[in-house]
């Protein structure tokens, strides 16, 4: 329901984003004069944002929503309206809390990771964090796609700034460039999509009767079989269904880029060159989450197009499996986490594509917590290891770093999807949705389901391989035997997140709810089912059902059995993966078993040569064509220009040679000229007739 009374919390909601922006400005211009080089301003700002977000969430929980324009960029009569606005509904309120929380904790952690380590360029770092938080928060509460795009892009800029933080080395700037470029490639499609949506609907607002998902829905509903421009909308020569699918795909391009889905995932592992807190921020709550969040935000539009949904699901499922397989052989702790991130976002996409809107949002939330935790935990390990990241140089850190260990373990259990940690609930729900909708008449989803299921094994394996190699066994290097001390600013975030990773799953225990018939236990489902009409779970369910033909099936006709089976299978597979890791890597001095994989290992170590072929494509079709164009431009185009001048000068030179210097020749030419003149005029005047 649209709120009739605007709560005061909504009036101050812009400050959620403005506060980090202020910290950005402070850090940028005054950072070097401040005690912690801007960290405190950032902490205060994000802390404030967190409080405000919580307040907003509470207000939303009270049933109020907010959907207003707050700043008009351009007010143009009779054509498109570009403005910034606030859309505060359960989804955005939830996300605001997640983002501001993670951001706050990352700021806190950075005190230990950056300040205490004596890094240079801290004001720049905190400015970047502030801007990052600002962009992401503003993206989250955007009320229209245009605004989303604006902040989506700014998020890209921030990732560039932060990934390339250590610019004096070679690798980070390169990684930053890659991250920006690859996501920009995706954003290109997004941009086309935004413009096309403007051109089609005349608006890009998400919610309300005049919003584009609503208009699209009406167009589809009204266009019966007549085809053509539905409901006065220009569909550029396509049928409305086909055109909306195209629009969906275009926007999806941006999602795939930012959320690092196959094939645009290659930037993400490289992005590990950035400081680890930044990795946490990027992977848990901001940049990568932005893509998935966007799909969730405009789910009402995607739900209209079965093709798009199927592609989302399939890409998601494939990415989940594909990335998980690569994580298996990595030596660098952050690389493992990076691929796991890609994989987990694959799950979310699978969930969205499979009609599991709640499941995906759920996983987005739990993942934010446990992945932030894992990255920060890895950061703690890295601090302790004096900035070494190779897991084979670690080992046995369990005793020396107890708090990080337990927190990390909690995160790992969540990641692997072990009952009852957070990841289990959310991942299970995604797989469940894929399964039931797959059975229910969309067999394509079953493919996604199977891939997701396979990935569970890999996830369990690489997660515990990582834990075992890092924390268990005997220390394998001197550094591992004498790790660096960790401060409170490192431990506090780990503790908070460790608890969340363990417990966050309880907000939506679907299997429990189903089995016990306790609908009320599915808190998140209920949360997302209120708010602005058209943006509710129920509505999405109707849409997927009506337009995408998703129906819920069940194994052997029993819903309970399906739930149990689904949960059981995924848990069993996760345990199997974990068990395999235990078998191979437990013990004081684990051996590297990757050699046994042979060629497969090479393939995996090289990430399926994804980078290579993308670089090849970029070089051939980018640089290569550019070189060719340049040569063409220099020789042909410019050559023509210079040719004209050369021909002129040459003919000028020829012409001046007429002037031989011999006066007799002049007389001859003069006479000839006169004769020609006489003949011409004579012929024209008819003298000779």
């Amino acid at each position, binding site marked *: 329901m649209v709120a009739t009374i605007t709560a005061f919390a909504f009036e101050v909601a812009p400050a959620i984003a403005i506060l980090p922006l202020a910290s950005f400005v402070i850090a940028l211009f005054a950072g070097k004069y401040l005690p912690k080089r801007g960290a405190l301003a950032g902490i205060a700002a994000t802390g404030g944002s967190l409080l405000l977000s919580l307040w907003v969430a509470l207000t939303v929980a009270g049933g109020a929503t907010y959907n207003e324009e707050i700043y008009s960029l351009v007010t143009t009569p009779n054509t498109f309206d570009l403005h910034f606005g606030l859309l505060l509904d359960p989804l955005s309120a939830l996300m605001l809390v997640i983002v501001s929380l993670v951001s706050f904790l990352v700021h806190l952690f950075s005190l230990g990771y950056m300040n205490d380590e004596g890094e240079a360029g801290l004001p720049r770092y905190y400015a970047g964090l502030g801007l990052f938080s600002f962009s992401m928060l503003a993206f989250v509460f955007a009320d229209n796609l245009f605004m989303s795009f604006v902040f989506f892009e700014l998020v890209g800029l921030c990732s560039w700034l932060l990934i390339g933080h250590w610019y004096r080395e070679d690798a980070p700037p390169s990684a930053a460039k890659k991250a920006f470029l690859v996501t920009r490639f995706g954003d290109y499609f997004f941009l086309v999509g935004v413009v096309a949506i403007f051109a089609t609907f005349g608006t890009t607002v998400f919610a309300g009767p005049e919003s584009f998902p609503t208009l699209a829905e009406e167009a589809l509903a009204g266009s019966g079989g007549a085809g053509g421009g539905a409901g006065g909308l220009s569909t550029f020569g396509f049928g409305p269904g086909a055109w909306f699918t195209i629009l969906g795909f275009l926007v999806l391009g941006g999602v795939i880029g930012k959320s690092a889905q196959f094939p645009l995932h290659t930037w993400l592992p490289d992005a590990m060159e950035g400081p680890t807190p930044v990795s946490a921020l990027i992977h848990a709550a901001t940049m990568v989450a932005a893509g998935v969040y966007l799909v969730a935000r405009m789910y009402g539009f995607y739900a209209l197009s079965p093709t798009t949904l199927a592609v989302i699901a399939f890409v998601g499922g494939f990415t989940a499996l594909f990335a998980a397989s690569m994580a298996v052989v990595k030596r660098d702790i952050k690389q493992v986490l990076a691929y796991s991130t890609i994989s987990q976002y694959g799950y979310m996409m699978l969930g969205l594509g499979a009609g599991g809107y709640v499941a995906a949002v759920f996983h987005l939330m739990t993942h934010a917590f446990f992945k932030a935790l894992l990255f920060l935990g890895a950061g703690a390990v890295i601090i302790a290891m004096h900035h070494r990241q190779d897991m084979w140089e670690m080992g046995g850190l369990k005793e020396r770093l107890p708090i990080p260990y337990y927190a990390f373990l909690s995160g790992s259990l969540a990641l692997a999807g072990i009952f009852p940690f957070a990841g289990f609930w959310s991942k299970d729900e995604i797989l469940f949705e894929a399964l039931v909708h797959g059975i229910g008449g969309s067999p394509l989803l079953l493919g996604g389901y199977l891939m997701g299921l396979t990935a569970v094994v890999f996830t369990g394996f690489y997660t515990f391989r990582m834990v075992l190699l890092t924390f268990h066994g005997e220390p394998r290097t001197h550094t591992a035997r004498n790790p660096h001390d960790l401060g409170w600013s490192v431990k506090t975030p780990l503790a908070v997140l460790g608890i969340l990773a363990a417990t966050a799953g309880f907000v939506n225990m679907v299997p429990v709810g189903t089995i016990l018939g306790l609908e009320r236990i599915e808190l998140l489902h209920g949360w997302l089912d209120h708010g602005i009409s058209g943006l509710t779970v129920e509505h999405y369910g109707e849409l997927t059902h009506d337009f995408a033909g998703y129906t819920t099936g069940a194994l052997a006709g029993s819903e309970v059995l399906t739930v149990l089976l689904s949960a059981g299978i995924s848990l069993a597979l996760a345990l199997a993966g974990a068990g395999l890791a235990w078998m191979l890597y437990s013990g004081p001095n684990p051996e590297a078993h990757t050699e046994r994989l042979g060629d497969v290992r090479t393939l995996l170590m090289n990430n399926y040569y994804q980078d290579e072929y993308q670089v090849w494509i970029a070089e051939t079709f980018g640089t290569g064509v550019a070189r060719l164009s340049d040569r063409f431009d220099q020789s042909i185009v410019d050559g023509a220009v210079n040719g004209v001048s050369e021909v002129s000068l040459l003919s*000028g030179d020829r012409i001046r040679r007429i002037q031989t210097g011999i*006066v007799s020749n002049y007389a001859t030419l003069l006479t000839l000229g006169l004769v020609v*003149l006489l003949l011409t*005029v*004579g012929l024209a005047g008819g003298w000779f007739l």
Partner: protein
Amino acid sequence: MAVGSSVLPTPVLQTAPPVGDWVALAPVLLLGLTALVLFVIDSIDPDDASGGGALAGTAAVGTLLALVAAIALLVAGIGQGQGGALRLYGDQLVVDGMALFFTVIFTSVATLVIVASYDYLRDRVYQAEYYVLMLLATTGMALMASAGSLATVFISLELASLPSYALVAFLKDNRGSVEAGIKYFLIGALSSAIFAYGISLVYGATGQLGLEAIARSLSGGTQLVGILGVGVLMVAGGFAFKTASVPFHFWAPEAYEGAPAPVSAFLSSASKAAGFAVAIRVFAVAFSPQAVVASVDWTLAFWLLAAVTMTLGNFAAATQDKVKRMLAYSSVGHAGYVLIGLAALNSGQNGLVLGASMIHLLVYGFMNTGAFLFIALAEYWEVGRTFEDYNGLGTQAPIACVAMSVFMFSLAGLPIGGGFMSKYFILVGAVGTGHFLLAALLLINSALSLYYYSRVVRSLWFEEPADSLDIEGYPFGLYGAVVGAAVVTFLLLPGIFLVSDAAISAASALFV
């Protein structure tokens, strides 16, 4: 001198001029008189204690007075407006707006050149002869502009030409000057022979030499089309020689290059203008387009001449190594632009196109004279003749180089001087009368000309000077003339309206 003599025995009723003959002819008389005074001065003081100061001063005062007189007459409206042209001495001479307008050009150029010559000729012998020849040539030109019959045309043309030959060869120990003189003379002799023969043929076809008499005779048509046609074209050839139009232009590059630079300035500006003045009058009055063009399409001839002249002049100029020769060729090119005015006479807007040509000649008088006088300055400094020799002059003599840049850009038709306006007027005329091809050629050639004119600017300002570049002295006369020409050239951009109305109305008056 031919000034006062009435050459035809036929008694003709004289029109009663509102002013005395001598008033109307004051500019011409002043010029001739000054020449005589110079003779006197030279015979009194052959050694010239003042180093040429007295001679140059007298000559300059004379031309300046003539200029003032011409402007005064022009402003007073003598021979213009309702009363029509003043016809003197049995139609042998005509004083009207056009004649006075051109007299202004000649006397302006002559003044500038004489002022500049003072420094250029310092320490040379035969200065008196130089000034006398120049004044006589100017007198001839002024007469050309006023000529009312083919006889006066011929005589005045020769009066202007013969001193010019001598002036070109003035540096008689300089091989270039002498060679230029002989070439100029030979082509000139050939051309005047052709011209004379053409006149005889025209006379044969019409039995008349008076311009208006010829027009009257032709108005009823003629049987002797062929004779008339050949005659007309031969007469055109004579003018083409004087205006350095292709194919009668061959003397021009050599003469301008070889002659002392002030003489080149004089010839390329004033002499060319004089050729056009007389050509305009003869073709507009005697062979008026309405009567003749049907059978003898001389506009076609001028069309061809214009096209070939501007193209050849500009293309040849583009590849020159010597600045002076480049200017010589560019002067050929400009003749082509002006010829458009004659080529476009068969259409409704004669006054406009001819006026445009006249305006261009006026502006050209200043910018081209100025450019050649800058060359004179360079010759005075002995910096050499090629573009490379001019390298870096901008640092040594910035004022003169700014002036030269103004000339170059104005000649190229950039809005830095009046050349832009006048070229624009010609273009308007050409397009307005439907001569699109000529207009296009004009533009193409202007574009090309930009290339070579800018080379000069480039040398002056952009290149590093050679080590040996050393300038001694800043001669007052040369500087004054160059800067004066530059100022006028520049002022003619916003102030073009001061002359454009006069020119267009003077040109229109020919067709009433």
